[in-house]
C-alpha cells in the first residue's frame, strides 16, 4: 500500500519506535519519591524540548491527548474565562475550520456564545479584512459599528487541513492584538511542515499534535501564553497550571518532543522535496477532464488537493484503495461515512469528489510515479459511474 494520507497520520518515525520499544517503566511524574522525580525529569525535558521546537516557553506547553482536546481547551477555556469575567462575548471563526473547531464553537453557541462567522475565498483562504472587522473592540473599523463589542476569542487555522492553503495569520494576529482579543491558531496540520515560532505569531493559544509529524497518536499540546486566561476542561489534581488535570504521560510527551525535533531538523529539505512532488501531481492532474485545483499557491508543501467534477467520491476512493493507494477526501465522521466537504463547499464548489493526497517523509518519487500512472484511469472510471 502506498500511503497518500500522511495528513491524517504519518507513520511513526523509526527513532520514535526505537525509543518506545526500549523505554524504561516510568513512575507517576507527580510522585515525590525518587522514581517520581525521574519520571518528572523525563516529562519536563520533553516540555522544554517541545517548547524549543515551537518557539515557546516551557511553561506555556500544556500536554493534551491530541489536537481535538487542545482546540476544545483553547476555545471553551477562553470563552468560559471571559464569561467568568462577566463578558459572554462573541467568537470569531472562519467557516472552513476543522470540525474540532466548528463543533466546539457550535456547542458554545448553545451555551450562549455569539458566533461571528468569517467567509473564505475560492482557495479556502480566510477573508482577513472581515476577520479584523468582526473582532470588535478598539480595532473595529468605522464601517463595522454593528459588532463593536470585543470578541471573547478568535480562532483560525494556520493552513487549511483539507486544501493546504496558508491562512493570513500575520494580518489576523495583528488585528487581534490591536483589538485585544485572544487569538487561537490551529496548527495541528501545519506544525512540522512550516517554520512556526509561537512567540512571533502574536497568538495567545496554539494547538499542535504529535501524530501529524511522526510521533505517537494520542499526544498533543496547547501552547498557552502566560497572559492568556483559560478555564480548564478537566478538573482534578491540578497538574499543568491547573489547566489540564490528570496523570501526565511522560513517555508520550518525550516521544512527541523527539518527533518534533526531527521534523524541524529536516524541515527545509523535506518541504522542498515534498513541494516538488506535490507540484508534479497537481501539474499532472490539472489538465484532466473535470479536475480542478482549488488550493492557493501558498500552501502546505505536502498536500496536493483537487476536486473531480461528475465523480462519486466514495467510488474514486475505493478504486484507488483497491489499486493500492491510501487516499482521503479530507474528512471522515465517526461512522466512517464521507460527507460532502464543508471546506470545498465554502469555496463555492459543490457536487464534486474531493481528493486530498498528502505526502510524508516515507513518500518516494516512485510512489508518485505509480500514483500518476493509476490516477487518470481511476478518475475516468469514477466519472463514468
Amino acid at each position: 500500500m502506498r500511503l497518500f494520507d500522511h495528513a491524517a497520520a504519518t507513520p511513526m518515525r523509526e527513532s520514535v519506535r526505537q525509543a518506545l520499544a526500549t523505554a524504561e517503566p516510568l513512575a507517576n511524574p507527580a510522585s515525590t519519591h525518587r522514581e517520581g522525580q525521574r519520571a518528572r525529569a523525563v516529562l519536563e525535558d520533553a516540555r522544554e524540548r517541545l517548547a524549543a521546537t515551537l518557539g515557546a516557553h516551557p511553561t506555556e506547553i500544556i500536554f493534551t491527548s491530541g489536537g481535538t482536546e487542545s482546540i476544545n481547551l483553547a476555545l471553551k477555556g477562553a470563552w468560559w474565562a471571559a464569561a467568568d469575567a462577566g463578558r459572554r462575548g462573541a467568537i470569531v471563526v472562519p467557516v472552513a475550520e476543522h470540525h474540532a473547531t466548528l463543533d466546539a464553537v457550535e456547542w458554545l453557541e448553545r451555551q450562549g456564545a455569539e458566533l461571528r462567522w468569517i467567509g473564505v475565498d475560492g482557495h479556502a483562504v480566510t477573508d482577513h479584512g472581515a476577520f479584523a472587522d468582526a473582532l470588535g473592540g478598539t480595532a473595529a473599523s468605522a464601517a463595522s459599528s454593528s459588532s463593536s463589542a470585543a470578541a471573547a476569542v478568535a480562532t483560525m487555522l494556520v493552513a487549511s487541513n483539507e486544501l493546504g492553503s496558508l491562512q493570513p495569520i500575520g494580518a489576523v494576529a495583528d488585528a487581534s492584538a490591536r483589538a485585544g482579543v485572544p487569538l487561537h491558531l490551529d496548527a495541528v496540520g501545519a506544525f512540522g511542515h512550516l517554520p512556526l515560532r509561537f512567540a512571533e505569531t502574536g497568538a495567545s493559544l496554539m494547538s499542535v499534535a504529535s501524530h501529524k509529524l511522526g510521533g505517537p497518536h494520542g499526544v498533543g499540546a496547547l501552547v498557552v501564553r502566560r497572559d492568556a486566561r483559560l478555564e480548564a476542561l478537566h478538573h482534578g489534581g491540578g497538574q499543568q497550571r491547573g489547566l489540564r488535570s490528570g496523570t501526565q504521560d511522560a513517555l508520550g510527551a518525550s516521544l512527541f518532543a523527539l518527533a518534533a525535533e526531527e521534523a524541524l531538523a529536516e524541515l527545509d529539505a523535506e518541504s522542498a522535496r515534498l513541494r516538488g512532488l506535490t507540484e508534479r501531481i497537481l501539474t499532472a492532474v490539472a489538465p484532466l477532464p473535470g479536475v480542478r485545483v482549488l488550493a492557493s499557491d501558498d500552501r502546505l508543501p505536502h498536500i496536493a488537493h483537487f476536486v473531480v467534477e461528475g465523480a462519486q467520491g466514495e467510488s474514486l476512493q475505493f478504486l484507488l484503495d483497491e489499486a493500492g493507494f491510501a487516499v482521503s477526501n479530507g474528512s471522515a465522521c465517526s461512522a466512517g461515512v464521507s460527507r460532502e466537504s464543508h471546506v470545498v463547499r465554502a469555496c463555492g464548489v459543490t457536487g464534486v469528489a474531493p481528493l486530498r493526497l498528502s505526502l510524508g517523509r516515507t513518500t518516494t518519487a516512485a510512489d508518485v510515479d505509480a500514483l500518476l500512472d493509476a490516477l487518470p484511469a481511476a478518475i475516468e472510471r469514477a466519472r463514468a459511474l
Partner: protein
Amino acid sequence: MKVLAAMSGGVDSAVAAARAVDAGHEVVGVHLALSRMPGTLRTGSRGCCTVEDAMDARRVADKLGIPFYVWDFSERFHADVVQDFVDEYAAGRTPNPCLRCNEKIKFEALLDRAIGLGFDRVVTGHYARVEHAQSGVEPPAVERSGVELPGVERSGVERSGVELHRAADWAKDQSYVLGVLTAEQLAHCWFPLASTPTKAEVRAEAAERGFLLAQKPDSHDICFIPDGDTRGFLAERLGSDPGEIVDRDGAVVGSHDGVHGYTVGQRRGMSLGVPSPDGRPRFVLEVKPSTRQLVVGPKEALAVSRLAGTRISHAGAPHPRLSDGLDIEVQIRAHADPVPAHARMVGDELVIDAVEPLTGVATGQSAVLYLGTRVLGQVTIDRTVAADELVTADASVSAGTSVSADASATPGERAAGMRGAE
C-alpha cells in the same frame, strides 16, 4: 468472483458475507449509511442504521479479514424510499418501504455502483434463492418465440435463465420483498442463506464464527421510523387535512384529520358519529385522497377478489403463459400466506383473480406472483374489486378463471365496486 457484501450490522448479512469468503471469493464489505441523521446507539430491536450498526458490521469484516467501507446512500434513500413512502400515503396508497429499498437502493443504486467498480455480484443476507442459468442451457421458450409482454424490458438471453425462489426456511422467506427485482438485477445477486433450514442455525453459525452480534435482535419495524409510530411520522410530514368518512352509499358517518393516517382494513382510530345500521364494527374500505374521503363498511366488504395494476416486474424471464392466463399463487404482504389465484394480462394491466377472497388489500401494496416456490414477479396494486361487488357487477361472469378481457373492467364494475383507480 469479486463480490460486494452488503452488511447491515445484522446477523444475516454477517453470515452471508462469511459464507462468501468461505466459498473462496474476493469479498469486500460495505455498510450503507441510509439515515441523514444516524442515531448513535440502537434502541431495543428497532432501526438498522445507527453508528452502532455500522460498527457491528465493521467488526465482522475485521474478523473475516475483508476490506470494509461505509457508503453514504442517505440522499438516494431519502428521495426513493422515505419521500416515496410519504407520497404514497398522501396518495391514499399503502407502500412497502422494504421492497422499495430493495428495488431502488440495494439492487439499483448499490448494484449499479458495484458493477461499475468491477464486482460480479452483490451478496446480501436475504432468505431467498436465485437460480442462475448454467452455461449451455437453452434459453427458455419466451426468448425463442419472441413473446413480448407489456411492462417488460427485453432482457438478454443469458439473463433469461435467472429464477427467484422461496428460501428453504419458509418462516424466514423474504422472496416477497425481492419480488420486484428484474432478471438483470437477479443475475447479479447472491443470497448465501437461501438453503439454511432455520434462522436459529444462522445465529448458531454466527456464534461459532465468533461474531458478537450473534444474538442481536431481528429488526422488524420500518428503519426510518424507529419509534414505530407511522401515523405520527406521516402526520408530521403531511399535516392535518380533515375530511369526511362515508359509507358505501356515500352517506357521511364521521370525520377524520387526514386520509394519510388510514390504511385499508383499519378499524381503530375513527371517530364515527353515526352508528352503523346493524351495530357492527366498520372498517376502512377505501382511501380517496382526491376527495379527502374515507369509505367505511362491514368486514365482509373488505373481501377482495380482484387485484390489478400496470407497474409490473418479472423476476426473471416473463412466464410465457402469463399473457393468456395462468394459475398461480398470489401473496400480498411480506408475511401473508400465498393464496391460489388466476393471473392474466388485459391490455397493459395485470389482473389477478383470487380463488378465495383476500382481506386487507390496499392499493400501493405489491402482489407477488408465485408458481410453486418460484417468484414470477410482482405488480403494484392500482385497483381492487370487492368480492361482493365483483359478483354483482359481473353478473354474467364468475370471479373464476374464465373472465374475459372485456369483462374485467365493465362500466358496472367501475361504477359499483372498483377501488383505488384515482
